């Protein structure tokens, strides 16, 4: 893929993600918001793939767009929503103060962007000696996917903790619901 095409694609995708994120915030109907939020996750997953992070993109698509949407849909299926209102965006429900706060926070974050190194700059810590060691050592051990190698071989403690968190999530949900049977 040429650099020009890549830049154009990233502009389109980022614009889509921004628009969908804003729409998620202002849309009136909760069901619409959930569906639009899934589209936001899918757009973000494509952004990750474009930035050469397919592992993150796969997670974003499966968890963000897939499972989270299913759980949200289940949750709101137990709520009551007004059937008469058919407006997509109700101007009265968008408070100017909230828009102001959100805009100020976004602006403040955008002010820090010039301090970041350019994408792919060779002097960033990501390209330091540790990364070079990981890449050569993981290949020498036979683990070709450097992401998996970092997760399990070099950062095993973190991943062990993550599995414990996932396990604890199931235990906590069952405890809160007072159910001892999983299915």
């Amino acid at each position, binding site marked *: 893929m040429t650099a020009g095409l890549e830049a154009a694609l990233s502009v389109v995708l980022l614009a889509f993600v921004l628009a969908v994120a804003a729409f998620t915030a202002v849309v009136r109907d909760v069901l619409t918001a959930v569906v639009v939020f899934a589209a936001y996750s899918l757009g973000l997953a494509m952004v990750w793939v474009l930035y050469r992070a397919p592992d993150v993109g796969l997670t974003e698509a499966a968890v963000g767009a897939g499972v989270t949407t299913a759980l949200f849909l289940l949750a709101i299926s137990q709520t009551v929503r007004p059937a008469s209102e058919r407006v997509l965006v109700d101007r009265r429900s968008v408070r100017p103060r909230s828009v102001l706060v959100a805009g100020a926070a976004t602006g403040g974050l955008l002010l820090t962007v010039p301090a970041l190194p350019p994408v792919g700059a060779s002097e960033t810590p990501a390209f330091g000696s540790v990364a070079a060691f990981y890449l050569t050592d993981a290949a020498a051990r036979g683990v070709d996917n450097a992401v998996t190698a970092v997760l399990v071989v070099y950062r095993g403690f973190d991943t062990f903790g993550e599995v414990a968190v996932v396990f604890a999530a*199931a235990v906590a949900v069952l405890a809160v619901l007072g159910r001892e049977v*999983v299915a």
Partner: protein
Amino acid sequence: MTRAPFTDSPVVTTTVRLLAPFVLTYGLFTLFHGTTSVGGGFQGGVVAAATVITVAFALGIRQTAEWLDGRALAALVVAGPLVFGAVALAGVALGGAFLQLDVLPVPKATVYATEAVEVGIGATVAAVVVVLFVRIADGYAEPVADPSADADGAVRPVRPAEVGSDD
């Protein structure tokens, strides 16, 4: 009452029946090939669990939940921490450090230890997602095709716990 269940659409059920095996295969591929290609335990487990969720949405959440084996699910939930802990302690038992994978007495020890850990992670993640889904669906009443029923809000979700049919 002759209301047809909302889930009876042949397009949805046929599509899910056709796609589910391929999605599950992709999930398992992602799970088992985490060391050589994109993905790993977390991603593969979520994709595998998404198969169950898709089937449940298409063919009925209640029926799918009843089809699931609670003991097998519980075993899968604890598989990840157990396998990870066993692999980590095996390194200590063989004279290495906690979580040191290359001291295990198998060829390409790091690769196979990583694979074992990934499979354990995948089992736990998939089972936990399914458990969360099934438990959140507890208070879920299957929607009905009759549009006049929910326009006036007459349809109340029936909680299976109140019905008292399961466990």
